[in-house]
């Protein structure tokens, strides 16, 4: 069972709002005439973005293994690379290595002068609008907005409303205080990353620190949607073409089990090994354990039972594993303060 603190944070993400400081979220600003030309050199997706748009993609090494889980963003002529990558990666240096004919640009590490807070939850939009301004309500999913000092990125990996807030480092205490005050009527809970990690697992979002540590490629990770089939040249493109030509015989599949298991535990069908656990966590909403397993063909489908791990039953399921409350919340008519009146929302 999760610790009490983690459970509270998890429930806040699923039912109200949770605030998390995210020192591991990184952001580079790429300025200059060739900013998007440079972005196009490094990304495996189509990098065309309208002003204020974001897109979820990956950065791949030469073996087509993701080493960064990123959004690319456009605000006017500036490009932003927002996401997660290891602190051991010198991202600016890696980007420069791929620059090709792009030479009119400057890369600015925004983490040097800013900090990140993240609000997640079905009513994050309402708290965010109260604390920052009603213009937040007009932000579509995967969009970016500049504030007088700071930026808001509407994204998130929990299946609920999510806002990454970037503010100048000198305003850290002030903004945390502002959000805590504004959050009181919303039963805001301050969380660490573990609650978000569990929610991301339930919604089948890629976790660079878990399945991302197993040298798996986008098709094995079910992340081909983050790449463009039409794009021919990007880091890792040769390996991707080879994978698509040869095919692959294993992929990540979501599963549930009533009993705990550990990463690397083998999964069996009768006496035959069919895969192994890559990540697992207890779901307080489902009251069972949810995980991702690397399962070989043809056992890699959802909706299959008859598997076992550590002699306990295991069943593969379709992602996401949760009926997210945010899907049922309508910004135009709903509010945290009338949440129990909405008959359409899942009851928890």
């Amino acid at each position: 069972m999760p610790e009490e603190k983690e459970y509270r944070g998890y429930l806040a993400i699923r039912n109200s709002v949770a605030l998390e400081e995210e020192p591991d979220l990184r952001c580079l600003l790429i300025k200059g005439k060739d900013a998007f030309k440079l972005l196009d050199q490094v990304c495996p997706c189509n990098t065309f973005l309208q002003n204020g748009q974001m897109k979820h993609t990956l950065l791949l090494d030469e073996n087509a293994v993701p080493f960064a889980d990123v959004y690319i963003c456009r605000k006017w002529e500036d490009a932003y690379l927002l996401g997660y990558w290891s602190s051991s990666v010198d991202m600016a240096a890696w980007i420069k290595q791929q620059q090709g004919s792009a030479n009119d640009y400057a890369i600015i590490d925004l983490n040097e002068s800013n900090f990140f807070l993240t609000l997640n939850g079905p009513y994050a939009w309402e708290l965010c609008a109260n604390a920052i301004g009603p213009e937040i309500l007009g932000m579509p999913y995967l969009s970016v907005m500049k504030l007088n000092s700071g930026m808001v990125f509407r994204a998130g990996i929990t299946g609920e409303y999510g806002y990454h807030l970037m503010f100048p480092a000198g305003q850290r205490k002030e903004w945390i205080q502002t959000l805590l005050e504004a959050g009181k009527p919303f039963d805001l809970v301050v969380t660490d990353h573990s609650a978000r990690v569990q929610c991301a697992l339930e919604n089948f979002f890629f976790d660079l620190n878990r399945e991302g540590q197993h040298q798996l490629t986008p098709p094995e990770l079910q992340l081909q949607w983050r790449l463009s089939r039409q794009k021919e040249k990007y880091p890792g493109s040769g390996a991707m073409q080879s994978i698509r030509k040869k095919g692959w015989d294993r992929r990540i599949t979501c599963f549930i089990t009533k009993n705990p298991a550990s990463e690397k535990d083998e999964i069996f069908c009768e006496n035959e090994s069919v895969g192994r656990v890559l990540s697992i966590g207890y779901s307080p909403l489902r009251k069972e354990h949810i995980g991702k397993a690397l399962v070989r063909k043809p056992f890699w489908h959802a909706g299959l039972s008859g598997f076992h791990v550590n002699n306990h039953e295991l069943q593969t399921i379709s992602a996401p594993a949760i009926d997210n409350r945010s899907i049922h919340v309508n910004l135009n008519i709903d509010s945290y303060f009338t949440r129990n009146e909405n008959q359409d929302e899942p009851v928890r």
Partner: protein
Amino acid sequence: MQTDLKETIEIRESIMIDVAEILISALHLDVDPGDLDPDTPLFGTGLGLDSVDAVVIIVELESRLNISISEEEGKKALRTINSLIDLVIIKKYGNA
């Protein structure tokens, strides 16, 4: 492999082909069927579909697979390709 497991796998593979074909042709997606991973999100991220696409998907599933889908069922199933497959299996075979 047990016979019932083998049958379930064959059914899911067959419906995956149908659903991928419907998505690609009805929505004019510029992808190969092999590019569509079964747990790809349909809306927001993933395929980035919108509410009009949602209606098209339900209408096409109903007409091509000869099933009837209520608004509530459609709303629940329109999450990923796999959740659509689950719905089709329930409609055609009575369980997912």
